[in-house]
């Protein structure tokens, strides 16, 4: 992009025009050329980003909807239009119940777990104790790390023979379950890792929410003789509703799309017990090569995510904000 093509100095509105500019030339021509320069500037500045979005987001979105109506294998020259056949197959497939169960359990437990534990940690961090800066840093660190790398690290920790987890369990008199091979432990394993990775994020968002609650509100409750538990239940939690809702939606969206931890730890197995909808899309599309069928799965997941977002927008619009 070069400097010269962009709009030269153009006063934004007529009032700053020097009146003696050129009384002979018609004002309309000046506005028109200025408008043309604005269009050009807009196209040059916003164009690249918009173009990339059109080519790599909107085009594939539409194409994927189309692909979902085809019986088509990745890279194959032949494709057959089968209408809603892929969807019919998905809804009637014996695998679907298990995929939905794995997706449901994974999503509900990871989201619920990170919200509850994150709130607990945020309440602890909110008490301005010495050392909280270190705790905050450590808590947030897992969130910035590669999910795949984190998965490998935890696979080592969960190693039933030589892992740290097995040593810790033995120390309290328990023997290590077969984390890798015996359902439901593989699912438990990826849930633990997912919560571990996201806990710090949830805690920090909650902490921001807590710090937005005016201190005098809590002081007033304390003066009224409310216990801390009562203040938490009747004052703090209700005031945190918008934060909770935001986190609920954010975590729901990201957990429904999680891939790299599963890929590192279980690859959807054993026996499909950790195959979530997201993982199924990858597996059908790129391992089994059934691109049409995978696209139908992608549409289903997309609709699910869209529903979550729609609920959010609806709720946020209506929500009365505190503070």
């Amino acid at each position, binding site marked *: 992009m070069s400097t010269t093509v962009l709009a*030269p100095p153009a006063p934004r509105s007529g009032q700053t025009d020097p009146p003696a500019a050129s009384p002979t030339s018609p004002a309309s021509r000046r506005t028109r050329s200025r408008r043309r320069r604005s269009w050009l500037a807009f196209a040059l500045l*916003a164009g690249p*980003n918009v173009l*990339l979005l059109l080519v790599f987001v909107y085009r594939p979105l539409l194409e994927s909807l189309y692909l979902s109506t085809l019986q088509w294998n990745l890279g194959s020259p032949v494709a057959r239009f089968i209408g809603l056949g892929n969807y019919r197959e998905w809804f009637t497939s014996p695998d679907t119940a298990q995929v939905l169960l794995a997706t449901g359990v994974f999503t509900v437990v990871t989201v619920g777990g990170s919200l509850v534990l994150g709130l607990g940690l945020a309440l602890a961090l909110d008490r301005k104790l010495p050392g909280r800066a270190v705790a905050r840093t450590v808590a947030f660190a897992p969130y910035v790390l590669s999910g795949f790398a984190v998965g490998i690290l935890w696979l080592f920790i969960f190693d039933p023979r030589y892992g740290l987890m097995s040593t810790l369990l033995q120390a309290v008199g328990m023997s290590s379950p077969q984390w890798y091979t015996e359902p439901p432990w593989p699912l438990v394993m990826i849930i633990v890792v997912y919560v571990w990775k996201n806990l710090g994020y949830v805690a920090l968002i909650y902490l921001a929410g807590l710090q*937005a609650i005016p201190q005098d509100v809590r*002081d007033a409750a*304390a003066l009224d003789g409310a216990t801390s538990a009562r203040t938490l239940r009747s004052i703090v939690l209700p005031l945190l509703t918008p934060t909770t809702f*935001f986190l609920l939606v954010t975590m729901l969206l990201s957990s429904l799309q999680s891939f790299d931890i599963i890929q590192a730890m279980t690859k959807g197995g054993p026996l499909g017990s950790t195959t979530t909808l997201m993982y199924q899309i990858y597996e059908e599309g790129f391992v089994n090569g059934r691109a049409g069928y995978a696209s139908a799965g*992608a549409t289903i997941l997309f609709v699910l995510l869209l529903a979550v977002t729609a609920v959010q927008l609806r709720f946020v619009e209506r929500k009365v904000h505190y503070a």
Partner: protein
Amino acid sequence: MSLQTAPGRPTARRTSGAPTRRRARRGLGLDLGAYAAMIAATVVLGAPLLWMVVASLKERSELYSVPLQWLPDDLDLANYAQAAGTIPMGQLIANSVGLTIVGAGLKVALGLTCAYALVFVDVPFRRAVFVLVLATLMIPSQITIIPNYTLVASLGWLNTYQGILVPGLASAFGTFLFRQHFLSLPTSILEAAELDGAGHWRKLWQFVVPLSLPTVAAVALVSVVAEWNDYLWPFLVVDDAAKMTLPVGLTLLQSIDGMNNWGVLLAATVVVTVPILAVFLVLQRRLVAGLTAGAVTG
């Protein structure tokens, strides 16, 4: 991703003061409980990372010992050497660093120019363009991945840097954050720039960007983290070890070494995680601000 950031994000700060002392007396027992929770959380969240580094320095016999040997007898980098002998580690680091810097830089530039146009260039349809950009936040990558893969393959971009980079370049989140920030800038400064004879390009880089450095830093850091950790897309488009990023290389190492060579695998895991951990520790405040942006609901 959130759509609910209020314009000019109000950063609510507690108005603390005198009542803090009273609260402190009331909450001694709670403080102890909170301390216990804080320490427990720190250990549970931090220990695995330390464990990773310690284990990567152990010899094979120290890793595969029952009962567990906590610390290595001596600091031994053999696992790192072996990892580098199995996958082209230097090349992978260069790939990851290069793609991260170029990708994050382009993302910031695309976001800045797009947001500038949306806020400061007066054309009638810019509102519609903004909605078009914003709506992509709701389109998840898994629905675009098969058609994008087909496109990239047909362009001959499999196993190339541009194949990894280009499809993910467009910036919706950055554009959104930059736009929010630009809307809060005082218009008088830009009017002064106009009287000065500055065109859009100069206004953007000489006036708007210098006034937006915290937001630029936040978006840049979020992009750095995202590019570095990005997994599914590079994993799909690259199977040539010379073009892999670090997380994809780790996948290759896992498939070569399996689970019977933890030391080597963990050494590579350290190489993947420690650089971003270092970025996080040094630039923590800005990075957290970026990653948690959008959550401030007032």
